[in-house]
């Protein structure tokens, strides 16, 4: 593989994803409005119900809005990752995935480039949300925004890789819509996005154990700690491991000798 060719392909894939996202104004608006609704309505309503003690990385008592923002950022990455993989199923059904997969580059590179493109395109939207969150007095240190970037990148890649693995196992768009509901909501609610682990332990140790194992929780914690200039090694390790596993599964699923393409029934053969 020549690196010059490979990097041109990567840039081409990124450019295409950017153009597609900019063209989908409704999706863009929803991506920003969705977490704002959670922050502006849900979080305000729950502020009085959920008292929070001082927990790392925070050094004082915090408002619920402050707690929930990293979780909402995780939700944005999760939704974006799932929508991107949904678009991969759509591309596969509509045929444009064939254009990608018949390019003279290794499949792992093409799929990795697609993941990276998906992640890079969502970052400006996440930062827009973080800036808007300042109106709700969610104000991490200025350097935290910079420190959060690698955490956002890793979490975004991990969630997009999860979507890639899912998309490689699902044959039709209709099936994927169902899986979205069975995946997004459990991942989101059984995590530390909305409630800290100690709160979950008080009400349900089983749910707390699930949330502790949920890679999405670790993605959220990685972002939360980075935003407040703290390093969370366990969350980092889990995110890297999950990214490797999901990506390997996705590449396996799209391998010409195994996985989806080999199993598929050729339509109109």
């Amino acid at each position, binding site marked *: 593989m020549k690196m010059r060719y490979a990097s041109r*392909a990567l840039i*081409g894939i990124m450019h295409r994803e950017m153009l597609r996202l900019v063209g989908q104004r409704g999706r863009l608006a929803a991506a920003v409005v969705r977490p704002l609704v959670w922050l502006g309505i849900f979080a305000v309503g729950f502020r009085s119900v959920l008292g929070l003690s001082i927990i790392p990385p925070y050094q004082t008592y915090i408002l619920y809005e402050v707690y929930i923002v990293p979780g909402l950022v995780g939700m944005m990455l999760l939704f974006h990752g799932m929508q991107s993989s949904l678009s991969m199923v759509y591309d596969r059904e509509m*045929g444009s995935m064939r*254009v990608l997969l018949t390019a*003279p580059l290794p499949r792992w590179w093409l799929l990795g480039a697609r993941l990276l493109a998906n992640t890079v395109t969502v970052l400006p939207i996440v930062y827009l949300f973080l800036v808007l969150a300042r109106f709700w007095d969610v104000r991490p240190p200025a350097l935290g925004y910079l420190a959060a970037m690698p955490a956002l990148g890793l979490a975004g890649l991990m969630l997009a890789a999860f979507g890639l693995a899912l998309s490689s196992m699902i044959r039709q768009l209709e099936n994927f819509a169902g899986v979205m509901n069975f995946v997004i909501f459990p991942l989101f609610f059984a995590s530390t996005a909305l409630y800290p682990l100690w709160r979950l332990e008080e009400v349900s140790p089983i749910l707390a154990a699930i949330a502790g194992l949920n890679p999405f929780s670790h993605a959220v914690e990685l972002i939360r700690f980075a935003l407040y200039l703290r390093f969370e090694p366990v969350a980092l390790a889990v995110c890297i491991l999950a990214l490797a596993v999901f990506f390997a599964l996705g590449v396996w699923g799209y391998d010409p000798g195994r996985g989806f393409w080999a199993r598929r029934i050729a339509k109109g053969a």
Partner: protein
Amino acid sequence: MTALAIDNLSHGFGGRRALSEVNLSVEPGSFAVLLGPNGAGKTTLISLVTGLYNAQHGDIRIFGHSIRRDPLPALARLGVVFQMPTLDLDLTVGQNLTYHGALHGLSRREARERARDELERFGIGDRQGDKVRSLSGGLRRRVEIARALLHRPRLLIVDEATAGLDLAARQLLLTHVRDLCRNGLGVLWATHMLGEVEPSDQLVVLHQGRVHWDGRAGDLAPSAALEAAFLRITGGPS
């Protein structure tokens, strides 16, 4: 060197055999028509040739490179127009072509220049800035062929590209691709339309996953009698 060499290719899905012991070759500069009724195995064959998935038995070589063992140089020499439209409807014609160029290692400038040249050759140079969604079916097919030729492949595979096109659009596409053959491009043209076959073409008749005829179309039957010969081979009404 042979542009496309398929040796003893067999593939199945579950218990169903889609292709059985298929052998065929396409030389550079030749126009080979892969003719078969719906369900003959044409699309499966093309999916295997383009490396979308691997064949269970047999080998496929493109200019000597095995698609299974050495896929990257094989794919670099290959241009494909799939049966299913594969253009991004919400991007412009130019954006679709430069994306394809990037996937084949072309710089943006090279891709833009080649896109302009290819589109002009197809008489649609002025549509570069138009969204694909606004184009007719015939124009979209022309864009797809222009895109498949952008990286200057030496073998072009076209899967039922004329399905759904009117007579004039079909003729235009065929004439253009035949012209390219004269300049050395090898073409495998899959179709189920007998009207697209000329007597001098290499004709491969595929039926129920097997090759039933491989030779000059004119040797099978004169143009007027081709339909009867095809129906005889494929067991249709005579």
